[in-house]
């Protein structure tokens, strides 16, 4: 009897080990050979590099992201970054941002934008299928855009849309509340992704949370909570089936652990590479380091309306004390670019070599004294508990000390910080990254529009008529010298009023197996697995 029990226990243990061994490294769909034994699955992990060369496109792709999303519903996603990367694989919008940042028609076949930018007529692409093999129609487009407006998550991108009407089976017309030049860019974001009307109406509005239904190149096969998303190339995809048939997105929250997984061959591509790991990745001939500037910059934001920094002299003092290069060297290990203009550097309108006041600690000291703090002042600075923010905060504290501004760094988790700084603007100064998910200067500039104060839109509480006028004017202007000139004036106004103090542009540091082709850095994280292929 005892023997039987111990035998059973031993078997259980063996099964557990077996499950652990085979789960991590491979996508379930891959095993075509008959029931691999435990040893084989371990070998799979070790030999994945060489095996790939032989099996070429049949090799599954394993893409690492940091955080698992709560929802896959494109119209109900808040925040930027990882959720978008996932949705780009399954969903498409009327337009698409290509890897060079240009916007091309996607589910729109063609379009006519009214001369005064007050409406846009779109001819919907024919022969596009949802993942349940039903064709996409103008009804789906109208339904999706209306849904995006109704959910309330997407005001930044659909706020300008008044209504959407169906003209005929393949044409729709979008009427705008006011002339809005960046509308095409808005229609390229996932906020305006096209979902299946029938599918949502039949299964209920919440179905898209875990069971997406889009037109993208990959179809979601399985969601293993806390571990991975498993995808299969959709054969009827309108641009042709993806080259890599099986793919999965694996969640590894620690960046260094992910870098180690990449080195051991457990994953093939990763985002958010820690700058401390870059030298190791670069030295490894089996790996490639892929980097580029992000559509995101780190800046010091002040509460312009109340508190110590409502006094422009105090804000100027900060401007005069900041040594941007020192912050890049230490906080970003040198992988960053000094930034002086308040527009993300990848935007066409971002002025190059934008001049800011030179460092002058003596003058800063005088300004602090003039503002009423000859003995100096101690200010608590809420800081997100994450190296991206706490490292520059540590340096900022040191750089501001000589002029009499003593900072007390107060680390807190992101949600608490968001609540305190973004939604309640209950702060004096903070370090913040200004990220945008689509490339238009208006998305950056709108963060400083007086009308957006409160509610999280404009939390520097800046409300200056001159700046407001420039922002609103920028929205009407089509791309060109006049728009560039307008945004230069905007940058100057932000600088002259010391609204925020830009520090540096972040980099998108990605790493991938050297056998994976088509990997490029995207400023806005438009990373399409569709573009990837195995190098023979």
């Amino acid at each position: 009897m005892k023997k039987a029990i111990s035998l059973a226990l031993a078997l259980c243990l063996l099964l557990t080990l077996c499950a652990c061994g085979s789960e991590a490294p491979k996508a379930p769909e891959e095993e075509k050979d008959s029931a691999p034994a435990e040893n084989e699955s371990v070998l799979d992990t070790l030999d994945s590099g060489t095996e790939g060369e032989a099996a070429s496109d049949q090799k599954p792709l394993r893409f690492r992201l940091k955080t698992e999303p709560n929802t896959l519903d494109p119209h109900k996603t808040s925040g930027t970054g990882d959720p978008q990367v996932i949705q780009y694989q399954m969903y498409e919008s009327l337009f698409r941002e290509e890897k060079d940042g240009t916007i091309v028609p996607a589910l729109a076949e063609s379009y006519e934008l009214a001369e005064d930018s007050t409406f846009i007529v779109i001819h919907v692409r024919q022969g596009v299928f949802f993942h349940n093999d039903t064709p996409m129609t103008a009804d789906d487009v109208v339904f999706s855009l209306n849904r995006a407006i109704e959910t309330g998550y997407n005001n930044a991108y659909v706020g300008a849309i008044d209504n959407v009407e169906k003209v005929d089976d393949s044409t729709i017309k979008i009427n705008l509340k006011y002339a809005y030049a960046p509308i095409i860019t808005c229609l390229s974001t996932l906020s305006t992704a096209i979902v299946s009307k029938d599918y949502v109406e039949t299964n209920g509005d919440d179905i898209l949370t875990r069971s997406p239904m889009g037109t993208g190149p990959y179809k979601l096969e399985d969601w293993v909570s806390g571990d991975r998303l498993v995808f299969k190339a959709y054969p009827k995809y309108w641009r042709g089936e993806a080259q890599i048939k099986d793919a999965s997105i694996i969640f590894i929250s620690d960046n260094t652990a992910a870098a180690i997984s990449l080195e051991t061959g457990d994953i093939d591509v990763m985002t958010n590479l820690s700058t401390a790991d870059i030298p190791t990745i670069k030295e490894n001939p089996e790996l490639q380091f892929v980097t580029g500037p992000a559509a995101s910059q780190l800046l010091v934001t002040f509460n312009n309306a109340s508190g110590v920094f409502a006094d422009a002299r105090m804000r100027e003092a900060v401007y005069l004390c900041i040594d941007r290069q020192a912050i890049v060297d230490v906080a970003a290990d040198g992988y960053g670019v000094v930034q002086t203009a308040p527009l993300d550097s990848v935007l066409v309108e971002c002025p190059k070599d934008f001049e800011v006041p030179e460092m002058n600690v003596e003058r800063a000291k005088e300004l602090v004294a003039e503002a009423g703090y000859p003995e100096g002042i101690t200010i608590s600075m809420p800081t997100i508990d994450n190296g991206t923010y706490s490292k520059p905060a540590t340096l900022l504290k040191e750089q501001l000390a000589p002029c009499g501004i003593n900072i007390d760094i107060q680390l807190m988790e992101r949600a608490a910080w968001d609540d305190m700084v973004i939604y309640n603007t209950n702060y004096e100064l903070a370090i913040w990254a200004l990220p945008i998910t689509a490339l238009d200067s208006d998305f950056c500039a709108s963060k400083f529009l007086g009308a957006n104060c409160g509610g999280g839109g404009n939390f520097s509480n800046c409300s200056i008529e001159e700046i407001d006028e420039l922002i609103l004017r920028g929205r009407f202007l089509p791309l060109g010298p006049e728009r560039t000139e307008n945004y230069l004036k905007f940058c100057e106004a932000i600088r002259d009023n010391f609204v925020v103090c830009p520090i540096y542009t972040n980099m998108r540091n990605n790493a991938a197996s050297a056998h994976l082709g088509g990997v490029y850095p995207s400023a806005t994280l438009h990373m399409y697995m569709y573009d990837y292929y195995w190098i023979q």
Partner: protein
Amino acid sequence: MEKKGRSQSGAIWFRFQKNKLALISLVILGAIVLAALFANVLIDPELVTTTNSSLRLQTPSAEHWFGTDLYGRDVLARIVYGARVSLTVSVTAVFGALIVGGLLGAVAAYFGGHVENIIMRIMDIFMAIPSLVMAIAVVAALGASTVNLVVALIVARAPQFARVVRSAILPIRDLEYVEAATACGTSHRRIILRHILPNVLGPIIVQTTLQMGHCIIQIAGLSFVGLGIQPPTPEWGSMLSEAREYMRRYSFLVVPPGLAIMITVFCFNRIGDGLRDALDPKLKN
């Protein structure tokens, strides 16, 4: 085999020093405490927080014995000043917990009945929550600062003291000398503080020493996750956390804070063990 005429503390010391490991621990801990006390004499305080991007991530050398961290700060200086922070916070927190928990435990044991039931059941509720989780909850609610960290540690540690003190008092509560004191009309306060507590000092001292070690680990843990000591104040846990990212290429960065935590906690535990043996009259040979 003791000599006659030795005072009580002399006897305790005699038994304690027979435990060589405890003795060595006491010497090491003494050195750490002295270094922490005279940190500003030994090392220029400027070295602790002044960043210098041209000196960052240097390997150990004659100039920087433990190397420099990612901000170019001297690691040795930060370890020594970190000892100050760790020891001050843990001593304050453990004594706070001792006073709060000890008094609650003493009152519970002395009065018994409903009072005991209510106090100890509340303590049980506190103990049902892992102390690190409890401390995280308190810090998250109050906000991260050194004072709040101490409060969190007191809340997390007090129930342990309450339990130990109560269990130590229970057997002596009904002894004759307590009854005698009661018969003389001595107040409850005086009986607890002057008659009972001095007689359970042994287990309390042992518990305090052992808790000191736990406390240092907990401070380091909280700082590691960013809820403890705020940067740029040096603290062993936050130093570990900062160095973790660079561990693969600059492994010398994680060793000093890790060893500092390990050695200090080990010393406290050995001393606690030695004291337990020395103070327990039943173990007298």
